[in-house]
């Protein structure tokens, strides 16, 4: 069976380069030669390709100009001077660039892990900060909230919660909210003013936080045992006394912070106990509301 000429030409034509370069096995070599004997077109193509190949091989070598070596040396010197002026972190980056493709996969995984951990850490910090200082309140707080400042000086021994304290007390900070000092975000406030306003803002933050937490604690107070109520009242009174007796400034802020923390603990423990109680009222019946 003989192949059509076109099909044979296509088949053997693809092998002409390998044939000319002596890369065909004997059986294929013989077949290509056989086709070339029969096909003038392919014979001409092979002759042309041989001339192309030989012509390329016989191209005269090109000598580089004498200036090339001088140019290389000058470039090397210039690059070394550049290296000397380059910041160390860029030198380190350039040193690692060639191996990055090899360790690229590992580097990407490490970078992704680092970003994830950073994100987790930031998120955790945000949650903790929110719980600690209640920033939503801290930014707009009255400077003289009666829930904290008023009881401190004139009547330390006042009842911590009014007798009619109920859940409505928890929303006590319904007093008009007015900013104490110019905000740092205010474009018109200069840096010095903002720094000078910081202590007042800190005090106002503690005042607002104490007010809100005290409201929450007083709301839950009705469910506590008499012993726990007494403990709570005496501790709050003691902490208020410490605030009153502390020197204005850092010491007083520290005392205010202690009161806020105590109130946070009291409220949080109470809420946790309530959740636990809902799950297993028998197991925690006696511990609920411990401040």
């Amino acid at each position, binding site marked *: 069976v003989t192949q059509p000429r076109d099909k044979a030409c296509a088949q053997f034509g*693809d092998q*002409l*380069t*390998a*044939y*000319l*370069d*002596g*890369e*065909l096995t004997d059986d294929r*070599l013989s077949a290509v*030669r056989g086709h*070339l*004997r029969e096909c*003038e077109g392919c*014979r*001409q*193509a*092979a*002759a*042309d*390709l*041989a*001339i*192309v*190949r030989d*012509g*390329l*091989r*016989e*191209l*005269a*070598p*090109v*000598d*580089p*100009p004498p*200036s*090339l*070596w001088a*140019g*290389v040396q000058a*470039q*090397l010197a210039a*690059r070394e001077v550049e290296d000397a002026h380059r910041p160390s972190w860029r030198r380190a980056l350039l040193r690692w660039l*060639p*191996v990055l493709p090899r360790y690229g996969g590992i580097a990407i995984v490490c970078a992704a892990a680092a970003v994830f951990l950073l994100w987790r850490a930031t998120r955790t910090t945000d949650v903790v900060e929110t719980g600690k200082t209640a920033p939503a309140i801290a930014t707009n707080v009255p400077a003289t909230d009666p829930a904290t400042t008023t009881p401190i000086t004139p009547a330390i021994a006042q009842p911590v919660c009014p007798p009619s304290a109920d859940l409505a007390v928890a929303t006590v900070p319904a007093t008009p909210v007015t900013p104490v000092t110019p905000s740092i975000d205010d474009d018109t406030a200069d840096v010095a003013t903002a720094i000078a306003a910081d202590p007042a803002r800190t005090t106002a933050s503690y005042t607002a936080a104490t007010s809100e937490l005290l409201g929450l604690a007083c709301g839950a107070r009705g469910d506590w045992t008499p012993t726990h109520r007494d403990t709570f009242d005496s501790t709050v009174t003691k902490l208020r006394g410490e605030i009153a007796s502390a020197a204005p400034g850092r010491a007083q802020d520290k005392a205010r912070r202690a009161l806020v923390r105590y109130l946070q603990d009291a409220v949080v423990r109470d809420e946790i106990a309530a959740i636990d109680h809902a799950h297993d009222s028998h197991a925690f019946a006696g511990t609920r509301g411990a401040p």
Partner: protein
Amino acid sequence: VIESLADLAPSLPTVPATLAEPRSRASGSLTDDAELIAACRRGEARAMEMLYHQYKRRVFGMAHRIVGASDAEEVAQEVFVRVFRALGAFRGDSALSTWIYRLTVNASLSHLAKRGRRQEVSDDVLSDVPAPAAVQRDPSLAARIEGALAQLPPGYRAILVLHDVEGLSHEECAAILECRVGTCKSQLHKARGKMRELLGPIGGPA
């Protein structure tokens, strides 16, 4: 290897002979290369000059034929600067020559890419190429081949320069171009075919 079919069958048409033996311009041994590299890394001027002289013709020749005469010196200079500055990163996975030629081809191709579509040889130069002679070897063939080579796509130009002009083996070409040997062979076949098209009728069998 068959030298001439005419001896076997004089009545049949002569067909082009296959290559008698593969042409190879093999590079120096690994030990020599290792010593030279170590000396260059120590900054020994003599070793650097030796390495330069060992590879200058090939590097410049490749660059000359891939990017053209006007930019060849710039590319060759950049190649040698890269070679000397990156010798520390040379891991010896391939021969030093393969590594240097790979740098040369890559630098040449990226230079062409930066240069865009501007061709080294313009149409005017091509039109000056004399018409092919009807018989035997065209005396101006070398000039025509240089002209046609400059008209090829850069990839084809690279494989022809490496394999046919510089006489490297398919394995070396594949290592330099970072492709398979089979790909290298097929690209060579296509490149020669394209050269033949560009050159037009070349002549009868020699």
